[in-house]
């Protein structure tokens, strides 16, 4: 966050998209989960994907992160057609996903979680070992960059707050060279203070030139950091708007997919 308390929004209109998804369809048997979704993300921007429950957000990000293969449609990664067969492929290409469960193990230390599956080593042959000093140092530095002061690198993840865990997961993805960071409802279970910490983290990540895909059903959180907004409803994209081109009310209506929301909101005094 900058001194005046607002985010520097990315102006990435000129840059070429890192990932471009065109008319993605995904069918599960006779269920059409996605019926033509188009979405792209450019370096240094935060592109929000909004949608109500059941809109297809989860299916879509799972397609983007290599968990599902699309039934129809095209995925371009840095301009070239791509087909990820496993999440590992997508990860190696630079698409990192922070799922809601965060892939963190509460009983393990922050360092051990940070480097889980990608441990730095030193020595050769039989003496090849986990370089724990280097790992501890990197963890402390990366976490400090994100504004979190750990008691020590051996602190168990279970003792961190929800927002801090989210930040560890984001810092981990960034450290391992993510070009695109997909965040699945990172603020849905957090308090006010922790939410603003996570939003500030998103801003820091974006300023490093990483494209952020921010999935949310909370319009206010999305508007706080987003550069572009795409609304997903019943498996289809209803269009993409740039920051400033759309009001919170319009976004809310699009997400709810109809006018009855306006009436409902009126009766609640515009608090939703």
């Amino acid at each position: 966050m900058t001194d005046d308390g607002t985010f520097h929004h990315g102006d990435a209109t000129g840059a070429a998209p890192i990932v471009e998804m065109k008319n993605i369809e995904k069918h599960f048997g006779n269920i059409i989960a996605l019926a033509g979704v188009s979405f792209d993300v450019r370096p240094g921007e935060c592109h929000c994907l909004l949608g109500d429950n059941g809109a297809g957000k989860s299916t879509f990000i799972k397609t983007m992160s290599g968990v599902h293969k699309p039934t129809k449609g095209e995925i371009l990664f840095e301009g070239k057609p791509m087909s990820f067969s496993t999440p590992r492929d997508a990860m190696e290409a630079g698409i990192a996903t922070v799922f809601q469960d965060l892939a963190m193990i509460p009983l393990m230390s922050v360092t051990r979680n940070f480097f889980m599956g990608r441990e730095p080593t030193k020595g050769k042959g039989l003496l090849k070992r986990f370089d724990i000093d280097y790992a501890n140092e990197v963890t402390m530095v990366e976490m400090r960059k994100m504004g979190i002061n750990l008691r020590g690198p051996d602190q168990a993840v279970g003792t961190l707050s929800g927002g801090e865990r989210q930040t560890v997961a984001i810092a981990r993805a960034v450290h391992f060279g993510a070009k695109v960071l997909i965040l699945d409802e990172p603020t849905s279970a957090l308090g006010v203070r922790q939410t603003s910490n996570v939003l500030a983290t998103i801003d820091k990540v974006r300023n490093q030139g990483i494209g952020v895909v921010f999935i949310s059903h909370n319009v206010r959180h999305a508007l706080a950091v987003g550069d572009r907004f795409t609304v997903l409803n019943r498996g289809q994209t209803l269009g993409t708007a740039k920051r400033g081109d759309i009001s919170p009310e319009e976004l809310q209506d699009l997400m709810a997919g109809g006018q009855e929301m306006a009436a409902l909101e009126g009766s609640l005094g515009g608090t939703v």
Partner: protein
Amino acid sequence: MENSSTPPVDERVKSQPFFAKLMQRPELGAIAGVILVVIFFSITADGSMFSLSGFMNFMSPASQLGILAIGAALLMIGGEFDLSIGSMVAFAGLFFAVCVINWGLPLAVAIPLTFVFAGCVGAINGTIVIRSGLPSFIVTLAFLFILRGLSLVGLKAATGGSTQLRGVRDATETDWLTPFFSGDAFPGLFAWLAENGWVETFKNGTPKVPGIPVEILWFVVITLLATYVLLRTPAGNWVFAAGGDTTAASNSGVPVTRVKISLFMLTACCAALVAIITVIDAGSTDARRGFQKEFEAIIAAVIGGCLLTGGYGSAIGAFFGAIIFGMVVIGLTYTDFDQDWFQVFLGGMLLIAVLFNNAIRKRVTGER
């Protein structure tokens, strides 16, 4: 600012006193247990229990159990159980004895063959658990009976009707590998210590303790190796991760299946090592070898701080857990108590350890 030598301290985080940090070590419970047991026996037992020969006396069974307990502990940290290790001791013992006696193989061939054989059985165990997704408890319970039964059937087939296969001593006596798996190590050192009057001797001048029983050396070496692997290698991190949360671990790129199957193989190999040591030592094998050792090994691992749910524990803890065991089994013979108090004591220790571990886990995960 970020490069300043003293990082800014979060005012909401209380600095932890040394004692609280110590409380978070998984092996603490077992070390506290050892101290308690030592105090108990120094009051109640004959003084000779804590002489050098008394020490070797209780360390010897502790080591045989401890080798199994280290395997069980690693597997438990990896999130699985193996109830078949006791039967595996008998089964590997049978295989080893058949290699040596019926096939007349030298130890240099028989021992590696036994490890390969045990590793295969462990891999079958592990593969069934992983592929079926069933709890390892139930799969290995099946193998507890299968292997015990096969040992009986196999012994009868190998001996023509007996459940004991004798003659291992004659077959191994002259083998150059025997001293590594049986008897006492460093006899020269102990003879020298006796000459100088630094250790107790018999009247004729030979030391009362002729050397360190080799199983104790194996036990110590395996504990150190396991601790090194757990704390200082990527594989160790994978064991903790696989046991902590399988999905999270595999999403992060940990080869969970490979880790778990390797752990099953390792546990079976630990059982095979105990089988080799005890079979050479006794000169024979029988179907009751390793009976109920699976429970004792798991109890030692739990006393050592391993959580039944996986993802937490230590090899050092299991080391001390096994020593507590050996001290109690042997220690009771030095006291006036009835030997059968042993089982009461065992159950009590287990209960206390589980309650203690549960409290520790809540502290570590910040649960309230």
